């Protein structure tokens, strides 16, 4: 059944309630609705326990929603066909340690109905891409965390997926490892521009650098879903102008118009401009200021989010 083919992930009023024993219940995700358009890099942001991993696991069919439905590339989850479009990188990828990197990729490739020369070529290409060619015949047991992560990325790309889902891809990595993975994600996006990349993270710097759109979850509820630019525009850009007049003074201006006016006036009055610096809001500032979120997801439709 085809439905919602213009978006790669359509989450419709999904809730997940966990039983915590003795009749007690905990809501992991609460009435979540979200539509991820094709070809976007979407960051799913939120603090620990906000429902990011639960949402991802429901998209993959690992968890059954208590309410609502999820569609992936036009097919309803948990139909196994949905997973033929997906490349998945779990938060802590773990592999059977007795196999080599190449043997693992061969095994996962066969699960995707890839065989023979086609599979071999694909594995060679991916090992090269993730820079693991030299270690491909070593057992996974001897891989570092970064190598394991890169192997996991390679397995997620075996089927040239239309939708890549990465759950905290940079978690637990050192700064160099994080940079490696970030570069790899950028490379994947440039190699597969039609593919949608949907990843969760609480490392805002990574999201800011990689994503075109951001969905923010808090306590299982969607707080906002918009483009990064839109989110960073909250409270506008600000400029700091240092002028020499009775010593150095710094003036803060909040718009380009204001800046131009100030510069014209300074020139007219013969005031010397020592320097101008521009400050954009950091994602962190934008996200953690309650009430400043630009768009309420509940009242927002997808086309608006795209604009």
């Amino acid at each position, binding site marked *: 059944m085809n439905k919602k083919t213009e978006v790669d992930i359509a989450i419709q009023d999904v809730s997940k309630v966990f039983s915590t024993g003795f009749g007690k219940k905990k809501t992991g995700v609460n009435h979540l609705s979200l539509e991820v358009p094709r070809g976007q890099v979407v960051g799913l942001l939120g603090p620990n326990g906000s429902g990011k991993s639960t949402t991802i696991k429901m998209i*993959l069919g690992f*968890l059954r929603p208590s309410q609502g439905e999820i569609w992936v590339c036009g097919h309803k989850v948990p139909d196994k066909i949905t*997973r033929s479009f997906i490349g998945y990188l779990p938060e802590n990828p773990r592999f059977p340690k007795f196999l080599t990197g190449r043997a693992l990729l061969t095994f*996962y490739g066969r699960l*995707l109905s890839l065989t023979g020369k086609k599979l071999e070529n694909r594995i060679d290409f991916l090992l090269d891409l993730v820079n693991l060619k030299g270690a491909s015949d070593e057992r996974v047991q001897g891989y570092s965390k970064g190598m394991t992560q890169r192997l996991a990325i390679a397995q997620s790309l075996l089927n040239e997926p239309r939708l890549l889902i990465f759950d905290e891809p940079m978690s637990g990595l050192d700064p160099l490892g994080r940079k490696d993975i970030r570069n790899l994600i950028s490379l994947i996006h440039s190699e597969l521009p039609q593919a949608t990349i949907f990843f969760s993270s609480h490392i805002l710097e990574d999201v800011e650098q990689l994503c075109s759109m951001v969905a923010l979850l808090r306590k299982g509820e969607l707080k906002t879903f918009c483009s990064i630019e839109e989110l960073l525009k909250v409270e506008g850009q600000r400029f700091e102008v240092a002028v020499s007049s009775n010593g150095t003074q710094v003036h803060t201006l909040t718009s380009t118009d204001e800046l131009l006016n100030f510069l014209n006036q300074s020139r007219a009055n013969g005031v010397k401009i020592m320097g101008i610096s521009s400050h954009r809001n950091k994602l962190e500032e934008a996200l953690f200021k309650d009430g400043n979120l630009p768009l309420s997801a509940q009242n927002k439709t997808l086309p608006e989010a795209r604009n």
Partner: protein
Amino acid sequence: MTIKELLHERVFYVLGAFALVALCLSLLLGELTYTEQSKISLDFLLAGIQISNLLFSIFMGITLLNRELNLGWIAMVLSKPVSRFHFLLGKFLGQLSIQAIVILMMGVLLVALCKLNEIQIVPLSIFQSLLLTFLEGLVMTAVVYVFAVNMGALIAAAASLSIFALGNFTEGAIKVNSDLEQNPVWLVFKSLIPNLKLFNMKSLASYGLFLEWHQVGIVALYSFVCASMYFIVASLCFSRRDIYT
């Protein structure tokens, strides 16, 4: 993959060592008896194989599924277009293949031990006894999967051992209390527990006797139907459970 995985499991080798010790002990126990020493030795040897096979069914089944779920390997497999039914079936068939090889190896060892100790055996009856042991393993492995997909390792092992005990003693209970045959609760209970007594031909084999092939066929059919039913239940439970890895 499952076979490779099992061959890298420590518990597999522990069980293998246990099987060897069990066979040697069975032989020693048989020699301690005064009468029909060779028959009792053979009976013990076959019992050793049956117990080893039961332990393989329980511990390998539980280990296989628990490792997948606890270590998170399952996430990599189920994120591919693989249904949970096929995942479970792969594990089940992989495990049964290993069990078939282990029974075959223990059978060869049994014949060698019998030759060394000059115990007379009838190959056909030994073969039939080993075949029925394998079929019992087929049913028990399916039972183990029902528990392993629903509960923790310890409770699943205890529940599987209980089913093994009940499956061997339900027939005996009817002999002791014939009124049970009329009791509807008992009838429901009996229909849920596999009749494992059907797979026990150790005594026949130790006397060099064997079953007619059509009887073996009926037992085989029973084991396939029974194992399929338990496997379907396990698969339904598994397809509905949440996977948190």
